[in-house]
């Protein structure tokens, strides 16, 4: 029983980081309606930056998180403004191929720069764990989850209280209406992509605490982000977080109850069911 609780807790904590990662995708898809297949690749690049900061300057990923978030915001903004903007009205397969090409370039760049072996970050508390009422809580996981929650909170505040945030939500709700009202949609799209990239960067920094980085993990995380976003509901921020938690816990539980090697199969099965039965996801608005 205790093992089960341990696993669920670990799943919830990991789920928080997943939620932040998926949030980036949800924001981009919800507003710009573009499938960012380079999502995982962007995150891997961010992870490598944080790794280098850790190895060269001894920077803890938690400290590096806001820095990488800012850096990726600029990169995302530039990417959208420079390249992606022209593809918004284009057919899906062209968008897909464009972002696939970007993803391949990013992944192979990390491969050239760092090689194929997995690398991990070194923090002093890497092997520590808390014991709370018999439940073993991994310290690193707990801190990563805290980082993720603060990231999500900051984002929520941005969208709720700032002018730009509200304008972006307006764009998402009604593109034409937003333009009619005088909002600079092109600029807002770029900002949105930048924010999506910010989430990706921040979650990458946190994820580096939990997993080892390798060029080949990019596609797995892109897919995972999609699963979470669709289950949670597109365009819904609480949905992304809820989706993250759900996937984190269900992966853990299915692994424990059935067989861990079937974990992903379970997640994909869930995705199929959600897509067929409730495509708007748990908290999304009707498609």
């Amino acid at each position: 029983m205790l093992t089960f609780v341990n696993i669920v807790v670990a799943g919830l904590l990991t789920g928080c980081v997943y939620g932040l990662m998926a949030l980036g995708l949800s924001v981009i898809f919800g507003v710009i309606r573009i499938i960012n297949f380079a999502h995982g690749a962007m995150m891997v690049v961010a992870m490598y930056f944080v790794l280098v900061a850790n190895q060269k300057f001894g920077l803890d990923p938690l400290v590096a998180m806001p820095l990488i978030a800012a850096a990726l915001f600029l990169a995302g903004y530039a990417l959208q403004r420079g390249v992606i903007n022209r593809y918004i009205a284009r057919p899906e397969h062209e968008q897909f191929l464009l972002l696939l090409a970007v993803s391949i370039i990013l992944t192979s760049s990390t491969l050239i720069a760092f090689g194929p072996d997995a690398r991990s970050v070194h923090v002093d508390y890497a092997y520590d764990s808390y014991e709370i009422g018999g439940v073993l809580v991994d310290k690193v996981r707990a801190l990563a989850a805290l980082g993720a929650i603060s990231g999500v909170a900051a984002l929520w505040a941005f969208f709720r209280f700032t002018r730009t945030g509200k304008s972006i939500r307006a764009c998402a709700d009604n593109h034409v209406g937003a333009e009619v009202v005088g909002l600079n949609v092109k600029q807002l799209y770029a900002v949105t992509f930048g924010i999506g990239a910010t989430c990706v960067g921040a979650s990458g920094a946190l994820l580096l605490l939990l997993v080892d980085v390798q060029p080949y993990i990019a596609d797995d995380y892109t897919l995972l982000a999609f699963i979470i976003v669709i289950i949670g509901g597109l365009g819904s921020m609480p949905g992304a977080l809820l989706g993250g938690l759900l996937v984190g816990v269900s992966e853990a539980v299915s692994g424990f109850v059935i067989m861990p090697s079937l974990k992903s199969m379970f997640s994909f099965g869930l995705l199929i069911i959600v897509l067929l039965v409730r495509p708007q996801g748990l908290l999304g608005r009707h498609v």
Partner: protein
Amino acid sequence: MNLLISSTMQRRSAMALAFFVAVMLVLPLFAGNYVVSMLVVVLFSAYVGQAWNLMMGYAGQLSLGHALYVGLGAYISGALFVHYGLPPWIGMLAGMAAAGLAGVVIAALSFRFGVTGVYFALLTIAFAEFTRIAFNHFAWVGGSSGLYLPVVTLTRDDIVHLRGSPTMFYYVLLALTLAALALSHLLLGRRVGFYWRAIREDQEAAQAAGIDVFRYKVAAVALSATMTAIAGALMAFYDNNLYPDTAFGISRSIDIITAPIIGGLGTLFGPILGAFVLTMLSETMTSLSANLGVNGLKQWIYGATLLVIVMLQPAGLWPWLKTLLRLDEGKL
């Protein structure tokens, strides 16, 4: 439509096609096994690209999980051969049936529930991945250790049992590719082809015009799946070993779609051209990066090439090449 295209243009297209076929027919007589085995890879890609093109280029449905049908065709024909000694061409029929059924199920479920566009694409990925992991645990087909087909070394080619040299497979695949080309050409000129293009352009308008959109979309997926399974079965007997991760994997699905998109979506010859260009590019890169010894350089150049083509020639290379060769208004 035929009246609008000058007879000169049509003749030019026909001549170009005839020239291409002639070259492909005699190539193995001059080229060694290395070139032939490379061309086998090209033809695999060209044929499957054509199958995928039917679904995407004509009916407008983006499938990112086409490896599912390749894998089903390969594993079913392979496993039936290993366990029951079933001849490959018969096992292939079983594989085609399974793939066709899978296609119908996926399409019917999706379209009935109104899942289209990006969501449909993601659904196809989910089904392919689900099947991949399932096969990794399926002992009857060897699970993740792979399925090995017993190999018999013969001194001559045996097309009935699909045992022979790369040259034999080359001609089989060439025949298939040309057959797919002919089939696409045929369908385009008939009612089903027009309906598909109408659905691709504007699904709601097509529905309003009285077309049974649901039925034609499912038909496109089923046909595409069944055709793809044939290539899967051939792959099983050519490679003689199958692994779920390579057969059903997402990298295979991505490889399947890059050739037709680069070559030219919705054109007859596009997938074939795309397959040639990409395989040649890949081989050149292999030699280059082997000499330079930089791990990852080949993929980088591959990605950069894709990017350049998507940005400069989004309709694909074939339309551009057609203009160059002045085959513009031909039927290809």
